[in-house]
């Protein structure tokens, strides 16, 4: 499966690349930022993780069967959930159930739609397409999920007085939390909206750059990039929507009472 358009990187070339990490370490030490150790270990972690993923992908591609691909997608969903959870200091009630089901439905649904209808590759589990596409969708939706869940929790906490005032005037749970829901959803979508607006001007996206480097025609690479950005926006929108819609209910009882913190 050698690609004649690409220059393969050997170990010596990677060592040259790592010289840039050494340069970063030296500069960090010069500036006394105190993060040299962290920088060093992060670079080692990145090396080990990527080599492991490389071999895993090599194996999955070689097996070319649906089961390992599906298992890998589930692992991605699991890691997305774990990372989203670890980023949040104050989690909403039932955090893992709410965010987990939203990621599975939102990202899973968009991945299936995108694979079958937009790209239309065959077989449906083709790991060369499905794994990188799902990786990008899950990775980006995870950021949206973290933002939605975290903002919803903080809004519900900060707006406690407003919510109880509305409830005492006869509002439903949904009506009393409307502002909190709106702000949480808006916060989740904003980075994706900004990314779309800046793409192609401020930076060339990673996927497009990778495709161009591997010999794909720039116009084809651009089309893929447009399509994947649409998919990411859709996944972030659906996942965050499900999180705020399921999430706000967890702060109330069935009798429209705000649960104590």
């Amino acid at each position: 499966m050698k690609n004649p358009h690409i220059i393969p990187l050997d170990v010596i070339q990677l060592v040259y690349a790592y010289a840039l990490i050494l340069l970063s370490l030296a500069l960090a030490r010069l500036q006394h930022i105190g993060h040299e150790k962290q920088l060093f270990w992060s670079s080692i972690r990145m090396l080990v993780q990527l080599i492991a993923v490389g071999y895993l992908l090599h194996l999955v591609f070689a097996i070319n069967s649906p089961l390992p691909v599906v298992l890998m997608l589930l692992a991605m969903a699991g890691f997305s959930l774990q990372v989203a959870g670890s980023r949040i200091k104050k989690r909403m009630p039932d955090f893992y159930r709410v965010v987990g089901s939203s990621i599975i439905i939102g990202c899973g649904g968009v991945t299936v739609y995108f694979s079958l209808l937009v790209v239309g590759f065959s077989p449906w589990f083709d790991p060369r397409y499905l794994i990188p596409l799902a990786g990008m969708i899950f990775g980006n939706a995870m950021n949206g999920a973290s933002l939605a869940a975290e903002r919803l929790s903080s809004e519900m906490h900060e707006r406690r007085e407003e919510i109880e005032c509305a409830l005492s005037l006869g509002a439903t749970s949904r009506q009393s939390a409307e502002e909190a829901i709106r702000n949480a959803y808006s916060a989740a979508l904003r980075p994706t909206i900004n990314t779309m607006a800046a793409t192609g001007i401020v930076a060339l996206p990673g996927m497009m750059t990778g495709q161009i480097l591997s010999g794909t025609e720039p116009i084809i690479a651009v089309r893929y990039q447009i399509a994947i950005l649409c998919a990411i926006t859709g996944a972030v929108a659906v996942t965050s929507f499900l999180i705020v819609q399921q999430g706000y209910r967890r702060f109330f009882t069935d009798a429209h009472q705000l649960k104590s913190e």
Partner: protein
Amino acid sequence: MNMHQQQKSGNDPFVEFIDVGVTKLSPAGTNRLILDGISFTARQGEITGIIGASGSGKSTLIRLCNRLDNPSVGTIELNGQNIATIDPLLLRRKIALVLQKPFMFHGTLLENLQRPFMFRRMAPPSAGSLEIARVLDLVQLPAEMLDREARSLSGGEQQRVNLARALINHPEVLLLDEPTSALDHPSTARLASTLNNICQNEHLAIIVVTHDLYLAEHIVNHLIYLEEGQIMEQGVGTQMLAMPQTTAFSNFLAKPEREEKSSL
């Protein structure tokens, strides 16, 4: 005479607490008794005052009335019906709660008064409507203020808007949680007279939680003294204040901060 008028003209108990208790889980994981064995009746056309030091369970008690919280034991009845069997959204229109800190929604005074209608998905009354005029009159706010940003109003004015907004639902019971805590003496005196008028004109049952002896002395008919979640003494307000029957209530009245309040 319709059913509503019949209910209001009767002299039956209106809100009745029957052996109500609340326990809450403390951060340490143990059960903490917040209220214990609370029994009293608040009648229509009367102002019932709940008085006690901070942490005595006053605010918890009032929140139980319109089901912002639930009792752990006992029942609360509204005109003979257990409130746990009433739809909470309907109940909160019948029993209005004015929270301690007047919260103003974004928008004008008029928009704040229209909020309860929007919650019920009903067309809100206009500035010139009888409904708006009625509540403005009850709380003595001029109609010229309707276009003012609610959040730019003074503390005393916001407390009036808070009260007017609660009254716009035509409640049968009005609950007030520390309504004078952020008010100066002239505003407190004005609010006391307003509450008296509302109680007489609207024939409501009013329950007011306070640590302010001015309110207790001037407007409360039935007074309840609460300490550590238990009723230590209850009776006619003026008699209780003139001649406390228990050491607990005497000690409460003798505290220096109480004397300051009573001299208001």
